[in-house]
């Protein structure tokens, strides 16, 4: 391939790649740098990408004054519980659809996928009324139950796609050895699907970690609000504390970016499987 490229083509590709790099990483790097700069440096004179002087005061403000750690804890609990439930419920469903004799399984898959196309704003009103009647407002449970349903379509689809690639002969061999249905899933299919489980788990975690609308509607205090709601409320009525916001943003984004970069190959495969497979 390389040999047949003209100089113009090579230059175009490298310039394009550079543009993609700047476009994707630039804004984040600028915000990251903002989190280490003094307010004075942010509002005066010439902006600089290198923080000078370097300060951690915005991180201090975010945690000590705004209680960022409360939001982080809420988000962690909600997202981890959601991830665990999504993996359990999703793998049961994907296993049944892929391995057991289900009539109309593609119909069922389509119905499950169609849920991800519902506008969430159409769900939030009725769900709010239900949650309020059941006394679930301002609880982790309301969010976890909701996020489970939001994450399930993608998790089920990606796991189903992966289970389908595992050879059927394994099932038969297991049956011969007298392994039951649950045994087949637990001892054989799941251990073989570990990479796919990690990817889907990560996707479910990110979905729950980043969700905003339901968290905004269902929670109203620092004991149950998640990070996105916390950050959205950072703005003061009289001025916008850009440095503090940048610091809080870095706290919630950097771990995600590290995770994503670490698992990027799996994520790209998982995403495109879930997105394109018909």
């Amino acid at each position: 391939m390389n040999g047949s490229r003209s100089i113009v083509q090579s230059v175009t590709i490298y310039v394009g790649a550079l543009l993609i790099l700047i476009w994707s990483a630039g804004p984040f790097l600028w915000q990251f740098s903002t989190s280490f700069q003094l307010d004075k440096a942010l509002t005066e004179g010439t902006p600089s990408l290198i923080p000078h002087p370097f300060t951690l005061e915005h991180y201090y403000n975010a945690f000590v004054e705004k209680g960022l750690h409360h939001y982080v804890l809420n988000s962690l609990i909600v997202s981890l519980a959601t991830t665990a439930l999504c993996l359990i419920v999703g793998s049961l469903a994907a296993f049944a659809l892929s391995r057991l004799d289900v009539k109309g399984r593609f119909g069922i898959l389509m119905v499950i996928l169609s849920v991800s196309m519902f506008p969430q704003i159409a769900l939030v009103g009725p769900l709010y009324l239900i949650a309020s009647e059941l006394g679930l407002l301002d609880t982790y449970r309301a969010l976890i139950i909701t996020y489970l349903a939001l994450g399930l379509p993608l998790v089920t689809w990606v796991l189903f796609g992966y289970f389908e690639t595992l050879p059927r002969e394994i099932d038969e061999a297991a049956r011969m050895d007298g392994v039951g249905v649950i045994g087949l899933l637990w001892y054989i299919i799941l251990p073989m699907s570990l990479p796919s489980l990690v990817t889907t788990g990560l996707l479910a975690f990110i979905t729950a970690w980043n969700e905003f609308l339901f968290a905004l509607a269902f929670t109203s205090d620092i004991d149950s609000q998640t990070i996105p709601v916390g950050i959205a409320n950072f703005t003061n009525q009289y001025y916008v504390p850009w440095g503090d916001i940048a610091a809080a943003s870095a706290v919630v984004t950097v771990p995600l970016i590290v995770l994503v970069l670490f698992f990027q190959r799996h994520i790209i495969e998982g995403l495109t499987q879930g997105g394109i497979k018909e």
Partner: protein
Amino acid sequence: MGALPSALWPWLLLLPAFMSLGSVSFYPIINGVYLSFTNRSLITQDNDFVGFANYLQLLADPPFWNAWWHTIWFTAASTGLETLIGLAMALILCEHFSGRGVVRAAMLVPWAMPTVVTSKMFGWLFDGQHGIINFILLHLGLIDQNVNWYGAPETALTTIILADVWKTTPFMALLLLTGLQTVPKSLIEAARMDGAGAWTIFWNIRLPLLLPTLLIAGLFRALDAFRVFDLVYVLTGGGPADSTETLSTLSCKVLFSTLQFGYGSAVSTAMFITEGVIALVFCLFLVRQLRKTT
């Protein structure tokens, strides 16, 4: 375990998923449609069946149409731009060059960020007084004074579209990249042997084969863009002067500021219907395209 008839197993395993999706998606959707025919309000405690009254009010409601048009424009503009830029990115990334892995990894950064963080970040980049965008444009001589991007009705929606394009183009590029990689290499090599240029290969071989992927990816993006909420809510809250109000932010306001759940449900049901129409149009195109290629 053995006592259970084998025909029951699949349903037993599917039950938790059905229960979850049923109670958090299907039931609320149906319930929402029902609510849209009532005058349910959390303030007056009304809860009567009013037939199509909410929908008649909706059709005569200027704020609703204002939000409807903004949503359609936002969806068309962001999906269109994301498809074009995403395609360009995918075409670059399907070539082999050193450092491709780094670029592919960097592309995931916008996707992994919480939308609220993206919104705040754009708020800072485009800040009217100290934003870096104003600084750069000023020094390039493209503007002669600071622009209040999110504060002015003329620029607010465009800048929100830009934020959306930044956030989701990488995802589009990834989907298209997988599509491009399924185009047989032999086909491209053969065309090259025949002396076809890069443009001919793209236009006559890659694009036609990519079309189904483009349509599916476009559908996903369009439905997602149509629901836009976080970006608008955090960046402008629908302002200034309702210039960025979308259907999601409007129904959120009706639901949780005025607590009119009946009317708010009518807004979100109307949105659901529009979304169904968008999906239908894409599906028709897709079916026609698949018929043509097979």
